[in-house]
Each structure stands twice: as structure tokens, then as C-alpha cells.
């Protein structure tokens, strides 16, 4: 009896504390534009019936079903950029992310980090940090969680216009 209660209490605490992710503090600020897509949305999208002969759409839906959360924060504010950078760095350490690649393209600094799942190919989290560049010094912090494979990323970048998608696509394709 005691144990059950303790477990319940602990479960409660952990959910309340960890439901808030590290990056949620950037949400709702005036200088930050945030896009957040939750698991429920991916669940619903994955339920849409598509033409079985349409391979591309099928692949896309299969991937959607494996996703949990997409968060994109963009800002042009220098102070917040610095804050994002330090948050991303400390998160990288605590969450055990590994650097997949680092690209310097036209003054744009791009870092892509992943958290591997059960096998090397499986990814639990993809974190991307883009700094600088031509478009008004925009900084982008993107986090995608789920249980997907590196090979599936091009499908995603084809269908969703995520920032840095073209670079991500170019590099993941080379890897195969």
C-alpha cells in the first residue's frame, strides 16, 4: 500500500516537473516566434486515410506516426540568441546528445545534434541550431522528438518546410 502511494506521488511530481521541456521558456515571448506541434496532432494526421498506391504519402504518414513533438523557435534578438545558445549547449550535455554535423554555409552556422535510440540508425531526438546568415540574422532552434530513422529525414524535409531543411537533406543523403 505504502509503495503504491509513494510511486503515485513520485509519478505526479515527475510529470509536473518534466512536462515542461527545457525550451518551453522561449515560448510566449514577444521577440520569439514559436511553432509547436504536439503528439496529438501527429496522431491525428497519421490517421488520415491516403491512397494506398501513393507511396510517397504512405511513407510520410508512416513517419508522422513516429513523431512526438516538433518545436521551432526563431528570433532575431541578440540577447535571446545568446540565451538559446547556452540553453541548447547545456541541454546537449544533460540529455546526452551527439553532434551529427556542423555546417558553415554562407556565414550561417548550423549545428545538428541527435540522440540515438536503441540502434545507431534510430533517433529519439533531433536538435538543430542555426545562427546568423543572410535573412536578418535569424536564429533558429528546432527540436524534433519521436522514434524515427535518419533515412526518413529527407521525407520530412520534402513535405514540411522546416528551417534548414535543404541543408539537412543534402547532408543526410550523402551519408547513405
Amino acid at each position, binding site marked *: 500500500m*505504502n509503495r503504491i502511494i509513494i510511486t503515485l*506521488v513520485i509519478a505526479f511530481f515527475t510529470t509536473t516537473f518534466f512536462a515542461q521541456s527545457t525550451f518551453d521558456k522561449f515560448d*510566449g515571448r*514577444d521577440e520569439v516566434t514559436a*511553432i509547436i506541434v504536439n503528439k496529438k496532432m501527429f496522431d*491525428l494526421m497519421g490517421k488520415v486515410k491516403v491512397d494506398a498506391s501513393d507511396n510517397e504519402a504512405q511513407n510520410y504518414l508512416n513517419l508522422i506516426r513516429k513523431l512526438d513533438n516538433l518545436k521551432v523557435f526563431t528570433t532575431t534578438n541578440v540577447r535571446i540568441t545568446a540565451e538559446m545558445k547556452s540553453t541548447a549547449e547545456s541541454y546537449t550535455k544533460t540529455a546526452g546528445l551527439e553532434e551529427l554535423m556542423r555546417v558553415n554555409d554562407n556565414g550561417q552556422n548550423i549545428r545538428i545534434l541527435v540522440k540515438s535510440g536503441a540502434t545507431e540508425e534510430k533517433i529519439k531526438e533531433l536538435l538543430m541550431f542555426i545562427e546568423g546568415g543572410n535573412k536578418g540574422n535569424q536564429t533558429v532552434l528546432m527540436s524534433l522528438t519521436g522514434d524515427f530513422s535518419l533515412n526518413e529525414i529527407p521525407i520530412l524535409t520534402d513535405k514540411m518546410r522546416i528551417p534548414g531543411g535543404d541543408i539537412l537533406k543534402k547532408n543526410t543523403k550523402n551519408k547513405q
Partner: protein
Amino acid sequence: MKMFLGISMFFSLLLVSCSDGPSLQKYFVENTENANFISLDISPSILKVDKAKLSVEQNEALQSFDKINILAFKVNATNRVQFEMEREKVVAILKDKKYQQLMKFGSGKEGASISCLGSDDHIEEFVLFANKKDSGFAIVRVLGKDMNPNNFMTMISALKSANIDLEQLKPLQQLIK
């Protein structure tokens, strides 16, 4: 042992208070008469579709929708403080666990979010909440029975071919003005 019981009771109380929280329905009822708000109900009849021309699927999709309720707050020179207050209220209501947020977009100044109520294949309500600091906010509730993503998609495709009855949308013009 007693302490644990106490703690668990405390938490169960929290749970109860959550489920009894304010609902959007209540909020709508409370504010329809308020001068700061514009409220609008849209029935499926807005879609002047020829039922005979619809496929079985489209008919089914149409039937899963009940109505659309819209409540909008328009900011003017005098109600800015109220706007902030009301906006906070809505945000608080939507934070309730029963509204599952699907996605969200925006910054502190403006933004939009979509939430839903119900399980995957039996969605009872979609809530769209959009706000902008300078102009106001709008809550759109799409109510129905057993709505699901498929119905939604069929509905959108049916909408393209439908004649929309613009008369019903007249009150919204005030917002755009």
C-alpha cells in the same frame, strides 16, 4: 502512513479541482451579452450543398459536424485592460488537460493555437484560438459528434465545391473594419 494518505488526498483534491475547472462553454455563455464581444453561431446550413450530390463519405463527414461557435473580442481605445484580462482567462481555460493542444504558432504579441477535446476518432470539439495584441482575439469552437481527421479532410474538400452562405458571417465584418 497517515502522511502518505494525506499527500494522496491532497493530490486527488487537485485532480478534482482540475476537472471542475472553468469550461469554454461557460465562458461563451457568460460573455455573449458583453459589449466587448462579438458572438456568432454558424450552423451547417451555411454550406449550401446539394445533399443529393454528396458522396456517402461526404455526407457522413457533414453529419459529424454540428455547429460552429465564434466569440471574438475587439480591442478599442477603452478596453485594453479588459482585453489582457480576458485573454489570460481564455489561455487559462485552454491550459486545462481536457483540451489537448494540437499545435501552436506565434510569439508573445500574437499567435494562434488549435486544441481538441475527445479521443482520436471521436473528437467532440476543435478549438481555434487566435490573438493579436493590437486588434483582439477570437475563439472558434467547431462542435460535433465523433469527428475524426478523415471527416475533416473530406469536409475541406467538400467546402471547396460548396456555396458558402455569407449572410451568416455578417457579424464578423465588424472585426475586420
